[in-house]
């Protein structure tokens, strides 16, 4: 049996996380939000998502965890940034860039791990220490973006499992 990934989103605190079924971005802090109800104003930042990966199932160790955009294209002016930190910070958005999410999500599989544990990319996840650092994801819509429903994207998490 292989390892299974559960993605948690933290809303304001580190307690009672929401289990993610999607990673929709919007102008409110909410897990699995309805993007149509909470559109992002052109020229602003969407509310960042504070996530954590938790591994379950049957495995000995996991390393080399990566995130990338495997499908879907960005419209003009759209950027999705990410970053990791072992320290929890609350979500940021609107007129503020999330200072923890400063790197554009790659559109191809990265060569090295880009999700950290204990603020380092050389780590081993075990069944007792089975969570990653907090992952911050934020969408940015510059003034060049247009008012539209942005095509759906797929964000893929991969890892090496033993």
């Amino acid at each position: 049996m292989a390892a299974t990934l559960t993605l948690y989103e933290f809303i304001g605190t580190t307690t009672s996380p929401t289990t993610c079924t999607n990673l929709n971005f919007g102008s409110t802090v909410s897990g699995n939000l309805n993007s149509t109800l909470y559109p992002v104003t052109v020229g602003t930042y969407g509310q960042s998502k504070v996530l954590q990966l938790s591994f379950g199932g049957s495995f000995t160790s996991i390393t080399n965890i990566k995130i990338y955009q495997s499908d879907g294209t960005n419209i003009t002016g759209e950027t999705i940034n990410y970053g990791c930190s072992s320290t929890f910070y609350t979500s940021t958005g609107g007129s503020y860039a999330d200072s923890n999410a400063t790197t554009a999500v790659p559109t191809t599989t990265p060569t090295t791990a880009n999700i950290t544990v204990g603020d380092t990319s050389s780590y081993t996840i075990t069944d007792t220490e089975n969570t990653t650092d907090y992952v911050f994801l934020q969408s940015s819509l510059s003034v060049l973006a247009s008012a539209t429903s942005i095509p759906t994207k797929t964000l893929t998490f991969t890892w090496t499992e033993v």
Partner: protein
Amino acid sequence: MTDYTSFTVTEKKAAYCTETEWRQFTGFTDQSEFPASDVISKIQIAAEKVKKDMFMAIRLEFVTKDSNDRYFMSRRWLANAWGTDVAHGTVTPMDLRIWESDETSSVSSAFFLQGSRINRLIRQIPVEGISEWDSINGYFKLTDSWPSSSNYRIFADYWIAGKPLNEIQQELRLANMYWAEILLLEEKKPMRLKNGVVSLTQGDRTVQRNEEEFDKMIRDLYNSYHSIVNVCRPFYGKKLKIGRIESRTDSVSPYGGPLRY
């Protein structure tokens, strides 16, 4: 490997109210009498009117930078810019016009030799160059590309309201609806006065159109509009002293002393 989908909807508002909100508010639901294209057009014209009445422009203010690269503006509260086709009711980079100023000795001396009182060249920094902004604390940050020379000074055009924009969302919406209604009703006036006919007699019955009541209705809307504008506009006046009575100084006026809020 696990996949997650991500979906985003973006918006770019051209007015503070929608056509649907206007129709619900006014009760003018008849599409033939008030066509959608006409209503939307008037709502957008009214939005610009609202901005010009409620917000005050501050032009080319010299802004200073702190150690966190935040450029601070002196007055509150940031509002939407005049003359744009967007009216979000929230502040975006489109509501700031940032300029960099070349005041190097060669520019200054060239201007001086021309006999000019101005000693600088200004160039607008594109809105994409604004990376962060705070409408409550009144600051913005620029991307690493700006200013294009470390010698350049930064100036800002911005617009202010008397209250934070998030507190006057309803007032913005109402004012926008009132002025759009005035525009649409005024549009009807010439048609009502066509050929100067204001009464029609048929047999022993006379139907008379009361133009004074129509005008009074528009005047009432005008007063309602301005009562809302007065709540939201910034105080801008000169400090006044009559005898020992002096006007308060906690204003946004450049003559009224430091800002307190």
